[in-house]
């Protein structure tokens, strides 16, 4: 019984993007870092904030605010980035701030509300009801796939 209990619990790294709490499965998060010296890439998709050097690796930074259709605070530079690896490539999701790591059981998890903004629904893997707030589960693969879809369209 003990075993199944731990199996069911998923650990999430929580992040804030535009005032909303999001959670990324901890298994997908490589590291959390401060994006430094971001180089913009001309002609790239607007979601792509640029590329940066993270310990010798080249990381493609994705601006989550833009991706989620939120307004970008012109002055405030994204403070933090979550490092993610996908198909051998490194990505950094630019976010506002990182919160704590939460262990959540599927009991509090719900489907996306059907009236959720389509742009959000596409990257959301469900919602967790927490005390006092909701946490949207970020589906990392959908976040990364989005650029491709839009480009193809």
């Amino acid at each position, binding site marked *: 019984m003990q075993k199944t209990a731990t199996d069911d619990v998923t650990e999430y790294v929580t992040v804030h993007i535009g005032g909303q709490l999001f959670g990324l499965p901890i298994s997908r998060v490589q590291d959390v870092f401060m994006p430094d*010296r971001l*180089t*913009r*890439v*001309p*002609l*790239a*998709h607007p979601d*792509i904030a640029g*590329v*940066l*050097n993270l310990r*010798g690796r*080249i990381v*493609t930074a994705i601006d989550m605010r833009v991706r989620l259709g939120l307004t970008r605070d012109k002055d405030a530079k994204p403070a933090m980035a979550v490092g993610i690896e996908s*198909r051998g*490539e490194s*990505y950094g999701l630019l976010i506002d701030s990182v919160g704590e790591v939460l262990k959540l059981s599927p009991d509090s998890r719900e489907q996306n509300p059907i009236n959720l903004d389509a742009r959000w629904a596409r990257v959301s893997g469900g919602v967790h009801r927490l005390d006092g707030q909701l946490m949207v589960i970020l589906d990392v693969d959908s976040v*990364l796939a989005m*650029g*491709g879809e839009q*480009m193809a369209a």
Partner: protein
Amino acid sequence: MDDLLREFLTETNESLDVVDVELVRFEQDPNNAGILGNIFRLVHTIKGTCGFLGLPRLEALAHAAETLMGKYRDGAPVTGEGVTLILFTIDRLKEILGDLEGAGNEPEGDDGDLISQLEAMSAAAGSAPAPRVEEPKVAKGTLADQTLERALRPGEVSLDELERAFRETESEVAATAVPEMASPPIAPEAKPAKADKKAAARPAKAANAGPSEDDAEGGVKGQQTLRVNVDTLEQLMTMVSELVLTRNQLLEIVRRHEESEFKVPLQRLSNVTAELQDGVMKTRMQPIGNAWQKLPRIVRDLGNELGKQIELEMHGAETELDRQVLDLIKDPLTHMVRNSADHGLESPEQRRLAGKPEKGTIKLAAYHEGGHIVIAISDDGRGLNTDRIRKKIVEQNLASEAELEKLTEAQIHKYIFAPGFSTAAQVTSVSGRGVGMDVVRTNIDQIGGTIDLKSVQGEGATVTIKIPLTLAIVSALIVESAGDRFAIPQLSVIELVRAQQNSEHRIERIKDTPVLRLRNKLLPLVHLRQLLGIAGGEPLDETNGFIVVTQVGSQTFGIVVDQVFHTEEIVVKPMSSKLRHITMFSGTTILGDGSVIMIIDPNGIASAIGTDVSATADEAEADSRRGDARQLISMLVFRAGSREQKAVPLSLVTRLEEVAVDKIEQAHGRHLVQYRGALMPLISVAGEMRLKSEGSQPLLVFSDAGRSMGLVVDEIVDIVEDALNIEVAAEVPGMLGSAVIKGQATEILDIGHYLPLAFEDWFKRKEMNAAALTRKLLFVDDSPFFRNMLTPVLKAAGYDVITASAAAEALDILKGGDRFDVVVSDIEMPEMNGFEFAEAMRSDKRLAAMPVIALSSLTNPAAIERARVAGFHDYVAKFDRQGLIAALKETSVDYAQAA
């Protein structure tokens, strides 16, 4: 262990090594009885010795192998499986020998598996007349242990496939009664249907994969080489790349600290890193011949299929390049060779009619040039059919008839690189499905290479590919545009030009299109920031900036950037898949300061600028070709006396000097300077000597026969290579006239005028000869420049000079009855060249004995010999004035005496 056994071990091991190598050779060349004989003898010896020493396992194995080889020797068809099996046997023999060496006696074990296979194969090989059909069945059951220990790499063929291929051939080949499998499917006599051919072609490929596998399993043999896993090398390369990056970062940090104790050790680290980088690069280098290995077979197969006789010549197979690049060009090369065989070469009949040898030649040549490798694929076929291409372009709606009218032939030829283009009238199985040259071009583009095409109707076509030696670390120019830095690969950068409002290089506009005048050509420009749609940094300065003159294929254009920094060895990192659609960039890199920058892809920029550029560039190229015909001359451009530019041919100038002003002395109203132990007179261009008041004075030094004079100039501007066309002849002594050099009207100096000013007897002292003064000389040269320049020189040497601007004109003058003592003629002239002119003179009795001196810029032995045959008495290089005077003296004296 007794001595006898030890000796046996050494000897046998050596023999087995030889057998290994020979077997691989034998598989490729199964007709070579010599190789087979050698293998047979070696194995036989091993068998004999084993029996003598009482080593039953070894003996049994050797015996079984020998039996199979005996069958081959007796004429049984050699199969790939057979060879593989023998190689396995050799491996087993070695294994046993190894144990024997360690333990002193033969290890226990059973070799029944191998022996039964060998016997089965021998039996199959022996059973005539149609044994091949059953053979695979035998092999099928017994070859189970032939699994590779590693996963297949791309391009390799699995054993199953190999086997299937063999089986298929066996039946094919048995049908045509041609036994050898490793030789290409031979069937010039039998012409089976195409499908058969294809089936037959497959094992050919498989056979190629075969030996290399066997080879790999054979291990290290004799040579001081070691097989290293490719992945290990890749890993090494990655680590070295990281090291280079870290080194660059450290260098960047130390650069900021003037006095750092790290400086010296870092320098050392830097050197070691560079050497390590070199070393690792070397391990990745492979001769291009590896990519060519399959071509002889392909060409042979094609020749049979198409009924053409084709000879494949390969030059520079040892030229090395990075294996990554090698992999990428293999297919394009194969495709182009196929193309040459199919489209390029004519059928033997057509060739005979065209007066060519029936056998067509495809030539592959590779050589290094700078940091790149150049590969040329040429054929002596019919060349590109411009009309057919034209028709096809219209059919495919790639361009309209009207547009084509404006294009040059070379531009039309370029359309073969357009997607979906194929000119073969008939779609053959070889080529002609329209997935040809555009794919080749894309592949070459991908690795940052360029492709160029030259074709002469009826004489053949040449495709030239220029590719970087390596993709991992390249030299790049770091530039800035709109506050961002970018790397442009050095490979495509020709030069840098700084454009400024008031300088001779300024950006001009035609409507909104920026252009630059560069050496009398218009260079299309593109602002990098506009192309990339970026803003920031300094606002766009319309007229100032740095222009990176870039060449892609035959396209030349200028990329305008705000700043140019330095060149750096950059480590190319592939772009994220999210960015790969941006054609302007080919990759990313990390600079020494740790920041990431994008690597510009010149190919992407070229296509973004569009076809307009290529048209302009081609015209420019055509222009320059026309210019070539007019001859390019290196001119030294300077200012002296006035603001106007002046120029002299560089080849006349001995040296450029700067002398300290206080070293200039005066004597007898002349300026002199001590120069190399002698007094050298100084002459000014304008009448009055205007020396600088302080510092150093630039001089052009002209030397001749141990004497020198210095021409005082204000400033040396440039050395320019340009076609010289004197447009306005000068009335002023000392000037030949004016010409446009680098877009500016420039006065061309007549050095012949100044030399006697320095030494009055400059031309005369040696040639002082009463007779010389009355001699008549005919000077033939199509270039007004040379006529103008040399006439005073010849006059000064005491000749009465008549000039002619063409050979025909000269012949008219000669036949007009005037008696000339000597004729001096240029070689490279339009219509009738110098050789023909001399031959024409020789054929005329009255002129036959008249001495003719050739004057040419071509001074290779072949040209000199050609001139001698044509009847020239002497051959002088164009700017060898002294040589010309000496030659004149000699020949005209002879002629005068004879006459």
